[in-house]
């Protein structure tokens, strides 16, 4: 039983880290980024590149990879997404799909599609930690939970307290008004892409060190996106409860049902949510006027 709780918490942390990125971008530009999973995978490969190819010490490698993730998000906005302003939202969503494809291609060209293990490259041991009640999680599992807690708290403080955070919220709410008040909304959009890429990258690094790294790792991102919808696309506060809910359903299905079913369980949650409460646990209803 403790094991179920522990696994749920770890999976939920991973989902929350990836999911926050979707929400950040959606709030800023009303675009759903389908590249989030691939940005996550990219973060993992950045870590692998720094530790295996550049052969720098692990802490430096992590720093470099964080920088690369941040820069990747920024570059995607500046090169592609900025031009999609004024186009239909769906076209912008499709552009993020091709961004995901390109990220995967870059990774395959650089490192082939073999499975990689950044943990081995960094010579990090990942010993299990015993929990009371006979459960066990790996060290990086515990780190994932810590990182998710840290990132969510930091984002909360940043968006609530800091000047820039308040500007981000303003630009997300009413871009036109925000621009008239002198807020550089392009800068805000760029920042939200960079932050989304950063949180996705953190999730990717943790997952890659813990499990493995392959170009198809972005699938987790697609599942995380069920989480975001359950929580409400435009609600950062909804991400955590939704992540816990979806992760719990998934962990329980693996334990008591079958693994095939567990793969689709996030999407089943999504369908149920769409039927009952399409705007999610904590989202706003604004853009959902009915026929």
């Amino acid at each position, binding site marked *: 039983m403790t094991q179920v709780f522990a696994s749920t918490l770890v999976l939920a942390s991973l989902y929350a880290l990836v999911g926050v990125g979707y929400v950040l971008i959606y709030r800023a530009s009303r675009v759903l980024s389908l590249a989030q999973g691939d940005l996550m995978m990219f973060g993992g490969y950045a870590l692998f590149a720094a530790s295996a190819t550049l052969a720098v010490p692990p802490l430096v490698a992590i720093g470099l990879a964080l920088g690369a993730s941040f820069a990747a998000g920024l570059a995607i906005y500046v090169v592609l997404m900025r031009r999609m302003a004024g186009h239909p939202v769906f076209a912008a969503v499709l552009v993020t799909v091709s961004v995901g494809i390109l990220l995967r291609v870059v990774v395959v060209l650089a490192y082939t599609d073999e499975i990689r293990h950044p943990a081995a490259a960094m010579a990090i041991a990942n010993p299990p930690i015993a929990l009371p009640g006979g459960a066990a999680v790996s060290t990086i599992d515990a780190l994932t939970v810590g990182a998710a807690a840290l990132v969510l708290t930091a984002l909360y403080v940043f968006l609530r307290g800091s000047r820039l955070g308040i500007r981000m919220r303003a630009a997300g709410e009413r871009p036109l008004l925000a621009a008239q008040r002198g807020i550089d909304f392009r800068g805000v959009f760029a920042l939200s892409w960079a932050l989304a890429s950063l949180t996705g990258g953190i999730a990717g690094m943790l997952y890659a060190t813990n499990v493995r790294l392959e170009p198809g790792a972005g699938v987790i991102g697609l599942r995380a996106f*069920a989480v975001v919808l359950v929580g409400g696309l435009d609600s950062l506060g909804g991400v955590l409860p939704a992540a816990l809910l979806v992760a719990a359903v998934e962990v329980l299905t693996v334990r008591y049902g079958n693994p095939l079913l567990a793969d*689709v369980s996030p999407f089943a949650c999504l369908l149920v949510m769409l039927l009952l409460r399409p705007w999610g646990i904590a989202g706003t209803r604004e853009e959902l006027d009915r*026929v």
Partner: protein
Amino acid sequence: MAVVDTWPRRLALGVLLAALAMLPRVASPLVIEVVSQAALAAIGALALHLLTGMAGQVSLGHAGFLAAGAFSVGILAESGWTSPLVSLPAAAVVGALLGTAVGMPSLRLKGLYLALGTLAMHYVVLYAGGEYQARWGLNTGISVPPLAVGSLRLRTSAEWYYALVGAAALATAACLNLSRSRVGRAWIAIRDREVAAASLGIAVARYKLSAFVASAVVTSLAGALWAYQRSFVSVEAFGFGVTVEYIAMIVIGGMGSVLGAVVGAAFVTLLPYAIDAAVAAARGAGGAEYYLFPLKFGAFGVLMAVFLVAEPDGLVGIWRRARNWVVLWPLRYRPLAPLR
């Protein structure tokens, strides 16, 4: 055939049909195979055009509908019903049911939310297919016997070529005529502005649902043909990437245009072969196989992004501009009434 209204158009159509009919006599097996694939892709793209291009309902679950059709054929074949007279209608019925199921939320949901619902449907269909494969010990896939009605059998690639090109031509004609019908105009009105369509007396809910059903039936039939042609069905063949490919077809071809769907399907199908040929010509043989796959995938991604950012009207938009330039020369501006 009021769709083909002027003599140059009739002439062009005649030439095109004659060329398509003559092709298997002169072309290499590879060319025949590629054109057949393009024709099959065109049927799927036309189905997506009905839903997204005409009725304006975004779907991220196209591969799910294809898989549903293919699996209907596979599962029926596995249970002893190999005749297409049974399995094609069955695939159509499955498509219609699935289309209704997915279309229902469209009465409540819009835009991105609807897209997410169709995406979820895709994964549910794949799960059902995977579960079937696992339960009956068919982990690698289900094999399907060749398509045969009475003494008529489709075996060689030339026979398949005629069947698929014929089906694609039929689908194209049907789509063209549909856009002129009451239903088609209702769909277009809903796409352009839902509130206005409703106030003109169009039953928005009914027509949205009918768009989903029509698209799902055609896609499911395309999936059934796919299963017969490959004589093999497996969940791995219907990933999210397939959906992206079909969306890319109608985007690259030109959203909202029948010609665009067909041209886009041909373009996206031919692209990998064109890259193969280009690489082979540039490097001679061998050596670069390893880079080929990412290269094709990458070219596809770049093209989709370029078209979305720079040319939202797609290949058809480029063609129209070029044609207008030629037609209007030496004048520079269009007449006030737009050229069709």
